[in-house]
């Protein structure tokens, strides 16, 4: 009896080891631990691939015209550069700029105001929004179940072809979690593979002094919320975080965005008000509106000469990750016959 149990256990362990084709999330060595709990959604190449299919498929919208990629384009580091405010279904205009998507496993909150608390649940927002995709997750499951191709893909990914909201969301998360950007020049410098030019180095020092408290390296954000003194756009009256917490102290606070891949992800800020980095720096140097909620770190003037601005921009450009933006594995998936 004991012997059979023993043999059974050995066999079980052996088969578990064999079937464990789970893909390890590759954390860049100079990054902190990721926040996403992979034990609840273990990465698997087939699930990532399914997520990629879904991300690029307009089937997620009511009239099959808008996919996630309509607003999050791979060539823009998954932001959108044509519009300051995002454009959705039937050409409706949203009220915020589509942020770039990468290194999402390290984010603690999602959306400019942190309305979403977990990457898995994020997709429900654009899917259900009347101005974005105007769909419903249960109807998406229905549409997907009518596709032989998706049935096969779910089977491959999850072992059977049950199509549930949970699976759709987890697959979308997996693809998005795979979007790691950590191969910019900055990353090579940090790993001692190359060096900054003297100008970039000066810019780096200015960055550490004036920007790093919020846009903290190596992710270039601490993912907190702050009021960086942008003048309020009265056509939008977007008070940011306050809408979620209903706390006055959070008025005009927005999620601090990463500064990686800025070359690809313009225009900048939650409403896409700035097209160029020079405009962003002009804001920090002389545009900040002093008001009660303004972040303490920005209360004192940031005095940057015009050469210093150029230096700082030179540094910011070392955060562009061309390999990430042109990585074929993240692009439009191959079409199935």
């Amino acid at each position: 009896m004991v012997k059979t149990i023993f043999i059974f256990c050995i066999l079980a362990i052996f088969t578990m080891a064999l079937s464990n084709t789970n893909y390890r999330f590759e954390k860049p060595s100079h990054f902190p631990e990721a926040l996403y709990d992979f034990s609840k959604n273990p990465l698997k190449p087939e699930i990532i691939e399914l997520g990629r299919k879904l991300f690029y498929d307009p089937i997620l919208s009511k009239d099959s015209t808008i996919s996630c990629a309509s607003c999050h384009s791979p060539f823009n580091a998954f932001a959108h550069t044509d519009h300051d405010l995002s454009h959705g279904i039937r050409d409706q205009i949203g009220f915020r700029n589509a942020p770039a998507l990468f290194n999402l496993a390290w984010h603690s909150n999602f959306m400019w105001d942190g309305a979403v608390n977990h990457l898995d649940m994020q997709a429900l927002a654009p899917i259900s929004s009347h101005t974005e995709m105007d769909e419903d997750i249960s109807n998406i499951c229905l549409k997907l179940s009518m596709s032989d191709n998706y049935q096969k893909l779910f089977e491959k990914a999850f072992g059977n072809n049950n199509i549930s909201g949970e699976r759709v969301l987890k697959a979308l998360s997996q693809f998005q979690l795979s979007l790691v950007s950590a191969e910019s020049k900055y990353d090579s410098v940090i790993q001692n593979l190359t060096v900054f030019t003297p100008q970039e180095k000066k810019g780096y020092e200015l960055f550490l002094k004036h920007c790093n408290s919020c846009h903290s390296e190596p992710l270039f954000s601490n993912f907190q919320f702050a009021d960086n003194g942008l003048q309020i756009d009265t056509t939008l009256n977007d008070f940011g975080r306050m809408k979620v917490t209903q706390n006055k102290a959070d008025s005009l606070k927005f999620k601090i965005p990463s500064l990686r891949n800025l070359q690809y992800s313009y225009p900048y800020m939650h409403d896409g008000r700035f097209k160029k980095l020079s405009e962003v720096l002009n804001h920090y140097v002389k545009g900040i509106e002093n008001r009660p909620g303004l972040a303490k770190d920005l209360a004192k003037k940031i005095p940057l000469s015009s050469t210093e601005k150029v230096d700082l921009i030179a540094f910011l450009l070392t955060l562009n990750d061309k390999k990430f933006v042109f990585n074929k594995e993240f692009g439009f998936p191959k079409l199935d016959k």
Partner: protein
Amino acid sequence: MRLLLIILFPIVTFAQESQIRFKPTFNAHEIEIGKSYPFEKRSISIENLKFYISNLVIILNDKIVFQDSLPARLIDIENKISLSINVKNGLKFDKIVFNLGIDSITNVSGAFGGDLDPTKGMYWTWQSGYINFKLEGKDPLCKSRHQKFQYHLGGYAAPYNSLQLISLNLDKKSTRAEIRLPIDKFLKAVNPQNQSEIMSPGSRTVELSAILKQLFVVRSW
């Protein structure tokens, strides 16, 4: 193996099934969807009633005798099966404890399946969080479009955490319990005429969730 069968057989056949039934009522009658009910000199109807219960435990003499294997259940009057919960056969109990709604840990832990699958329509989309309790219907005095009222109660984050711990003592030890939820009393508290919609977490959702907590009544049957 045969021995096991001989032992099990009588238990399976003779033990009475233990069960908890949820019975949402209007003027003391079990609610039927779409039916008109007299309410304060007018007649109103219920079109949708769903709520989550989670972490259900059953107690006898202050000891937990049964713990639900499911983390949460969606009680939906349109889905009759969801109204009854079978517990271990023959089990007697004198107290039932559960959460009305979904706890904050579950609310921040990503996607779940089963009754917690977002296709169940009990998840806010533009802002994270489960809807703990959903009641929709019609009242001729509602000023809203189509005279509809819609109450979506939920919210897990302080200070607007709407989760309620419901603890119900039975009048006597029993294998069966019926839990009633008088919706007419809830509507009296909200007054659809004054407020036809509650769609997001806030102080009002917390208030109304606390009122719901007081309305549950249990009896053995």
